[in-house]
């Protein structure tokens, strides 16, 4: 199976008071296309750090990341911005909707930003429908429940038809029922829309939905649960 991302020996470290803290040590993974991959681990295991690198939000100390055939670690900031804008969608742990915009505007804003060429209104409504929030399009984020907000965030992340969505603990602040609902949406996206999903979580109850699982511990991959199926 073709992989959309491959990493080669990536190392990430942060300066701390008594020297350098190695958050990631020599990571080599590959993310399969149009599948759902889970990065699992306890707090501090380095899974979010790894995801930031995969999503071109940060650069590693050493090693390379090949995204769709291109090395994004040596790419200019502009090029990385372009990739983030067009090919990637993010869903964050702390629900990060733009508070001054309605659900509709939040989604539309992603379209504006990526320079979406088609009919924006149609696409926004389509995405909101996909997450089941068509009726709440005109509401401000503060008027929505946590699960609803996260679903809007997903709608926003997929609106501009990215190749890959990174979701950092998207269910952490949700009850298990709502969490499952969110996972189901991701699953459907991977299957029906052909979008690759990379998600971090420590919730073992959600693992069943994934196509591949990497487990991290102290900055190292300790287990790779090979593609099920």
């Amino acid at each position, binding site marked *: 199976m073709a992989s959309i991302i491959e990493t080669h020996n990536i190392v990430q470290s*942060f300066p701390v008071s008594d020297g350098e803290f190695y958050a990631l040590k020599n990571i080599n993974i590959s993310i399969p296309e149009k599948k759902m991959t889970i990065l699992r681990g306890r*707090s*501090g*295991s*380095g*899974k*979010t*750090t790894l*995801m*930031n690198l995969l*999503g071109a*939000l*940060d650069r590693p100390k050493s090693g390379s990341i090949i995204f769709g055939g291109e090395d994004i670690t040596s790419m200019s900031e*502009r090029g990385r*911005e*372009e*990739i*983030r*804008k*067009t090919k*990637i969608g*993010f869903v*964050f*742990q*702390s629900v*990060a909707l*733009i*508070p*001054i*915009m309605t659900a509709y*505007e939040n989604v539309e*804003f*992603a379209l*504006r*930003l*990526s320079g979406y060429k088609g009919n924006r209104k149609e696409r926004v409504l389509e995405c909101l429908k996909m997450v089941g929030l068509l009726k709440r399009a005109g509401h401000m984020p*503060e008027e929505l429940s946590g699960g609803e907000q996260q679903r809007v965030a997903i709608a926003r992340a997929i609106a501009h038809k990215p190749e890959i969505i990174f979701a*950092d603990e998207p269910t952490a602040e949700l009850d298990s029922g709502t969490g499952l609902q969110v996972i189901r949406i991701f699953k459907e996206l991977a299957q029906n829309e052909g979008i690759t999903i990379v998600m971090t979580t420590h919730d073992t109850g959600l693992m069943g939905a994934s196509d591949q699982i990497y487990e991290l511990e102290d900055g190292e991959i300790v287990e790779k649960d090979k593609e099920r199926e």
Partner: protein
Amino acid sequence: MIRFMLQKLLYKKWMVISLLIGNILLIAIACSNPMYKNASLQRTLKKSFGDYIEQEGVYPGVVAVESAMTKDQSNESDYLMMSELSDTVLKDIGLEQTDCVKMISTMKSNAASIMGREDNTKSHTMRISSMTGIEDHIKLLAGRMYDTSVKDGVIEAIVSQKTFVDANLILDEVMEFKDEMGKDGKPVDVKVVGVFTNSEAEDSYWVKSPSDYATECFISPELFEAQFINTNKQLYNVEALWYMFFDYEKLEPADVKKVVKNTEKYVDKYNTKTARFDEPAYLPVLRDFILSQNKIVATLLILQVPVLVLLCAFIFMISRQMLDLEQNEIALLKSRGSSKSQIITIYLLQSAAIALVSAVIALPFGAFLCKVLGSANGFLEFVHRGSLKVRMDWQVILYGLAAIIVSVAVMVLPVFKDANITIVNYKQQKNKVKKPLWRRVYLDVILFAVSVYGIYSFNDRKENLIFRVLSGESIDPMLFLCASLFIISAGIVALRIQPVIVKAVYLISKKFLRPAAFASFLQILRSRGKQRFMMVFLILTVALGIYNTTVARTILSNAEKNLEYKDGADIVFKEVWKDNSAFLVSTATYEADENLELTYTEPDYSRFEGLSGVQSAARVLREDVTISGYKEQEPISISLMGINTKEFGETANFDPALLPEHINTYLNVLGSNMEAVLLSMNFHTILEYDIGDKIEYANEDGDVISAVVYGFFDYWPSYMQTDYSITDEGTLAENEQYLIVANLSRVQEMWGVTPYQVWLKTDGSSQFIYDYAEETDLAFTEFSDTAADMVDIRNNTLFQGTNGILTMSFIVVLILCCAGFLIYWILSIRQRELLFGVFRAMGMKKSEIISMLINEQIFSSGLSVVIGAVIGILASRFFVPLVQIFYSTTEQAVPLVVVNKSIDMIRLFGVIGVVILICMVILAVIITRIRISQALKLGED
């Protein structure tokens, strides 16, 4: 608890710094008020006395007590009483006596030389006097000092130069005082042994200069006492005069009222010939001072109130914002069982700490402000000038304490409401945004309406205002408050309009907006509450800046223009002319020729034209005249100005805007016919003269000149249409002034050449005329130097205080604006860090985020500047014409106009621009430091 407080303060360092700034400014300005007031009043008082000395040539720090004793009468009681009074009177009035001079004299008597000199046979009017301490204040021009004992029945005396010459004396001449009989029944003999003059040119000892003592023979005071005084049975008529001196520079402005009151009491009480307290020269000086003091004190206060109120508002708003951030903590404390009073105590301690720390810095800062005020030369314009003597006194402490109490109250006030909130209420209320009360009841709109009503009402009463100011009263403080109210309320009302404008722009451009602009518009439209705070201060800064600079520029420029107009030319003077008046009065030795007329010898006028520094010169004859056709009972005052049109046109200073045609057109008309005259407009409007009419005017001697009216004018160099005077009843009297302008050659042809004024146009400096006068011993009967008078205006306490305070207010508002601006943006960016992270993660460039912020700036800060400018211009247009009345004087001749100079605006917007730029740079630094991954809090595990 204290640790909690400290942590809290450290965490919100920007706000704490702002609170400190607000407190320091509030306390410093409150303290600087009494400091500046006292220092500048002290200076004004000293200057009033200095001016008096310059004009009158007399030392004003003196009081005089008079008494007299009559021969053969037992009326010594008054004399003794006054003698005693002289010891205590100054202390009683409240002044510190530095010196005392007692002068005692016999009555004037006939005295003749007994030397049998041929050239001195006549008898002279003379008297015998003594003055205590005279020996220390004279130098002998001839002869020697008198002896203190009687030698061979002859008393020795010294005389002034004037007496010596007038009585045609020689040294050691013995004069026999025929009307003053000695104990032996023979006339008293006095031998003149010396001639004196004052030892120093400026000596306060000489209340009257030695040359005023033209009949006195001064003998030793002890001898006088022994010879001519016997309080039991007085043998001579004597007059006594006690001069008591004090140092006027030591007089405190605060004591002036008391001194005036006590002095008046003495003047009223002792007014008989034998017990008299003369009205001292300082009394009118001090009365004038009290008038200007009231004006200055009122002005300083009125001008400072708006900025003090603004500072309180600023402190309140910052405390409010800080509290908003702390509500969570308060609620938490509350839920853990802290009582309301405990929470209030925390905030009380915190506020008191901030206020006290501020006070320590504020006191010296206040003194510094005071010095800055003293060196204000215009709006945002300072010069180095002898600095003010700043002192700390109980008044300063009191003002400072009051400011501290007010500030602490303002800081703690918002806590009372919040101290009730528990964590549960807090969570419930968090998302409810309630409009503040004032906004719901449209308080700003109501206040705005009130201030607009004020404008109409003041314009209605404009005449009354002018009248009040001219009669010395201070202006209605409501006018100044009304102006402040207008600016503040208009600024807040404008905040209701700003969203409408933004929304309109947004709706129009919505379709084409780039994502950054789109996000920034939504940001402005949907989070208005917090911006308001920053915008209000920005609007006020710009509006107050424009208003203040216009007020400062206008009052100064009006005063200067008026001065230029009033003086007529750069330098105007009248020389002392030699004449034949000496031959017109009969004297003992000379019989005057009755047919002789007063003629003058015209000095060489052309020597002024050649002086370096003179651009042009003109001769201007001024004469009071009467007109024959005028039949009314009441005399009117008409004056004549005789000019040579060409040189007058070249020399006079005149604002062309004052006449419908250029003044040269008028001068050409006048010059076209020797008999032509130009008349002031009131000849036409009141006396009903018309162009082409004949007019006849006559000088004091009744010599008539007839002329033809060629034109009328409203304004003419140095011509005042109305002369204001204050009547005894304290009302203002207006006297219409009439002016006839005629050709000088025609007037001189008819009346002969009489002393005229010389008008000079200089090339900037007037120093040459002083040098020339010194060199050639030039004597003037009139002299005015516009350049020197201009300096006086700028040094005038009222103008200086006004400029100083207007500048200070502006700087304070600017600082507040800067602090408000930074706080708003820093908070706004801190709160939006996550959002920026999201934007960045979504692929937004850094430059796009900055452009988003710039767009926000344009529609919040930029719009505020524009709104502020509009309000400032409106406020200037409405209020400056009213405010400037306050600074006008009875000598105002030129119409008052509102003046704006582009340099002021450039300076103003330059300062504001630099401040915004600095703030933007600080913000840019903060933004570039944001790391996306951190902002997103993704790196937390």
